[in-house]
C-alpha cells in the first residue's frame, strides 16, 4: 500500500484539511490534538528563541517553523531511548517531540552550566545521551557515515534497534552523504534516512543543488527504497515512517524517506532578510498556506472536533511560560568556568593539556561552578 518511488508525495490529508485517503483508526481526535499540541509547542519555542536571540542572550538560532509536520511525525515513529538518532542542526522540534526537555535544549543554546554538552558548541547543536540523540556536528552530512556505522553495530550486536539519520536537502550534495548512504546500503544495516527537504540550503534552491528531480530517487543509487511524502501532512509522515521504520526494524535493510516541506523562517539569524535576498514573499506565502499546524486544525474541524481558539491561546501562553522558566532555570546555573575547556578532549587529560591548563590558571582568576 505504501509504495516507494512515487512521482507525487504521499499524502493523507489535503492542504485544506480533508482526508484524501481513509484516515487510519489511530488518528483519533485525541491523538490529533496531542500532535497539534506538540507542533504548536515547537513553533512557539522557535518564536521565543528568536526573541532571545534578538535580545542578544544567544548568538545563533535556526528555526524549524513550517517543518513541524515532518519532525514531530518522525519523533512519533521512534522508540525513544532505544533507537539511535544522528540528527542535524535544525532538529530541535524533533528533539522536543522525543521528550528532550526544553531545559536541555535551552541550556545548550545558552551554553550554561546546565548544558549537557558543556558549552562546547554553538547554540542549537545539542545531544542527549539518554535519548540516544547524538550530539550534532555543524559539518553538513558528516553524521551520515557514522549513522551507517551505528546501524552496522546494531546489526552486528543483534539488537532490535534502528538508527535514524536526518539531514536537509542541501546535505545530499556532500560526498559524505553518498559515502554513508552507500555504506548503509552495502551493509544492509537498519538505518532510516530522513531528508527534511525544505527546498532551500541557505540561499541555494534545490534546483541549483542537484539536477535530480527529487531526493528520494537518489535511493536507487544505493539499492534501497526511496519514499516521497508530504512533510507538512503529519498523518502522512507518521504512516510512512511507521511502515518504513517497520521494514528497517524487520531487517529489510536501510531506506530513505524524503519529506517535502518548507522553512518559512529565515535560514538562521544570519539571513533574517531572506526574502529581500533570494526568495519571494509569494513563495513563502504559498507555503504558509500549506502549514502543517493549520492542516491538523482543519482536519479536526472536518472531524467535528475543532479546537477552541481560547484553548490555543491558553496553550501558547503555557508554552511561553514553559520557555521562560527553562531560560530562567538555565541561566540560573551560570556559565561554565574556563577549566572546563580542557576536559573531554580525551578520556584522560594528557600532560600537555595539564600544562596548558596550568598556564591559563596562572592567567585567569579561578571560577566557581562547573556541572557536577
Amino acid at each position, binding site marked *: 500500500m505504501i509504495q516507494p518511488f512515487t512521482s507525487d508525495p504521499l499524502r493523507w490529508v489535503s492542504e485544506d484539511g480533508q482526508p484524501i485517503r481513509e484516515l487510519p483508526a489511530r488518528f483519533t481526535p485525541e491523538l490529533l490534538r496531542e500532535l497539534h499540541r506538540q507542533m504548536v509547542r515547537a513553533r512557539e519555542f522557535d518564536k521565543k528563541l528568536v526573541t532571545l536571540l534578538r535580545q542578544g542572550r544567544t*548568538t545563533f538560532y535556526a528555526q524549524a517553523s513550517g517543518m513541524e509536520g515532518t519532525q514531530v511525525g518522525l519523533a512519533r515513529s521512534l522508540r525513544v531511548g532505544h533507537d539511535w538518532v544522528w540528527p542535524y542542526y535544525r532538529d530541535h522540534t524533533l528533539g522536543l517531540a522525543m521528550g528532550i526537555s526544553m531545559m536541555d535544549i535551552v541550556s545548550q543554546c545558552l551554553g550554561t552550566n546546565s548544558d549537557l554538552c558543556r558549552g562546547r558548541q554553538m547554540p542549537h547543536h545539542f545531544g542527549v545521551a539518554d535519548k540516544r540523540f547524538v550530539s550534532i556536528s*555543524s559539518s553538513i552530512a558528516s553524521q551520515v557515515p557514522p549513522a551507517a556505522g551505528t546501524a552496522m553495530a546494531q546489526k552486528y550486536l543483534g539488537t532490535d534497534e534502528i538508527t535514524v539519520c536526518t539531514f536537509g536537502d542541501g*546535505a545530499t550534495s*556532500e560526498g559524505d552523504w553518498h559515502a554513508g548512504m552507500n555504506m548503509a546500503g552495502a551493509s544492509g544495516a537498519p538505518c532510516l534516512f530522513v531528508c527534511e527537504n525544505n527546498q532551500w540550503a541557505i540561499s541555494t534552491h534545490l534546483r541549483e*543543488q542537484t539536477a535530480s528531480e527529487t531526493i528520494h530517487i537518489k535511493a536507487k543509487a544505493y539499492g534501497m527504497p526511496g519514499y516521497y511524502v508530504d512533510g507538512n501532512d503529519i498523518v502522512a509522515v507518521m504512516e510512512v515512517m511507521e511502515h518504513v521504520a517497520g521494514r528497517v526494524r524487520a531487517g529489510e535493510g536501510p531506506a530513505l524517506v524524503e519529506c517535502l516541506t518548507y522553512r518559512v523562517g529565515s535560514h538562521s539569524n544570519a539571513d533574517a532578510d531572506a526574502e529581500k535576498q533570494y526568495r519571494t514573499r509569494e513563495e513563502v506565502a504559498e507555503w504558509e498556506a500549506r502549514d502543517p499546524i493549520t492542516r491538523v486544525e482543519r482536519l479536526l474541524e472536518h472531524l467535528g472536533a475543532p479546537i477552541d481558539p481560547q484553548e490555543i491561546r491558553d496553550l501558547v501562553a503555557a508554552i511561553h511560560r514553559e520557555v521562560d522558566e527553562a531560560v530562567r532555570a538555565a541561566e540560573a546555573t551560570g556559565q561554565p568556568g574556563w577549566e572546563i*575547556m580542557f576536559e573531554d*578532549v580525551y578520556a584522560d587529560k594528557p600532560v600537555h*593539556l595539564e600544562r*596548558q591548563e596550568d598556564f*591559563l590558571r596562572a592567567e585567569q582568576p579561578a571560577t566557581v561552578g562547573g556541572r557536577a
Partner: protein
Amino acid sequence: MTATQNPARAGAGAGETRTLTLIQAVTEAMREELARDERVVVFGEDVGARGGVFLATAGLQAEFGRARVFDTPLSEASIVGAAVGMAVRGMRPIAEIQFADYMGPGFDQLISQAAKIRYRSGGQFTAPMVIRTPSGGGVKGGHHHSQSPESYFAHTPGLKVVMPSTPYDAKGLLKAAVRGDDPVIYFEPKRLYRAAKGEVPTGDYTVEIGKGAVRREGRDLTLIGYGGVMPDAERAAAALAAEGVEAEVIDLRSLLPWDRELVLESVSRTGRAVLVSEAPRTANFMGEVAYVIQEELFDQLLSPVVQVAGFDIPYPYVQDKIYLPGPNRIAAACVQALNY
C-alpha cells in the same frame, strides 16, 4: 626591508586611496579581477544572490551575471574540484569555502589534485586557482566556525597559503593570488572583516606572495604573527611601548612560502622572538618559524623563542575570548622573553 611597509610606498604608487574594511577590500579585489579578466569566475555556496554568508561577494552576481558569479551545490569537494578542472582548462577560478572549518570535505581535492597536478604532470597541466575562506575565532562560532586550519595547508607542498590582516594586503594579496600560476589558499580572518579598516588604493596593485611586512619597528624583541591576531599583537606592542619596550611587529601575510629573510633579519637585531597564532599549539605552523630562528640565529638569541598559540583542544564556544591570545597574553609572553 626593515622599514615599516607603508601601503602608499609599498604598492600602488601615488594613487588615490579610500578607507575600506577588510571584507570590502576582498570584494573590491574580486570585482576588479572579474572586470579585468574574463577567465575569472567566482563561485561557492551562497555567493550569488545572497552574496556569501559574510557578504564578501555581495553585488557581484548582479554586476557580472550568473555565468561569472554563481552558487554551487553544497559540496566542498565539488567546489575545489571544479576550480581545479576549470583552472586546468585555462580559467582563473576564485572559489569560496563558506568557513575554513569546512575545508575537510574538499581536503583530498586540495592535496591530491590542486597541490600535485603541476608536479605529477611534469608541468604539463597546472591549477592556477584561489580558494578563499574565512577562518579563525572570536565570533562565538564554536568549533565549527572558529578553527584555524592553515597549518595543514602550510605543510602541503604545491599549495601557497596566505592570510592578510589589513584591507591593503587583503586586496593586494588576492589580486596576486588570482594572477599567479599556482593554487593559493587565501584565509580571511573573519573577526577582522569589519574590525580592520584601512587605506586602500583605488587603483591596481598586488602584494607579493611570500613577503611579510613590518608593522612597527623596534629594537627589543620581534613579535611575529599573521591574520586575526595582528591587531592584538600591535596592541600588545603599544602597551609595551608605554613601558619603554620597543617591539618590532612583523605580519607574515604569507605562510607558504614565508618570509624567512625578513624574520631572520629582524630577530638578528632584536635577539628575541615571540610568535603569535591562534591555531592549536602542537605541530602548529609557528613551530617551523621557531625552528628556523633557533637554527639560524642560535648565537644571537638572547632568550628562547616563545609561542603564544591556541590551546590543543577543539575551539570552545563559551570560552571563545579566553581561548584566543589577546593583547595581555601576548604582552606577557614578551615580558617573559625580555626577562629571561
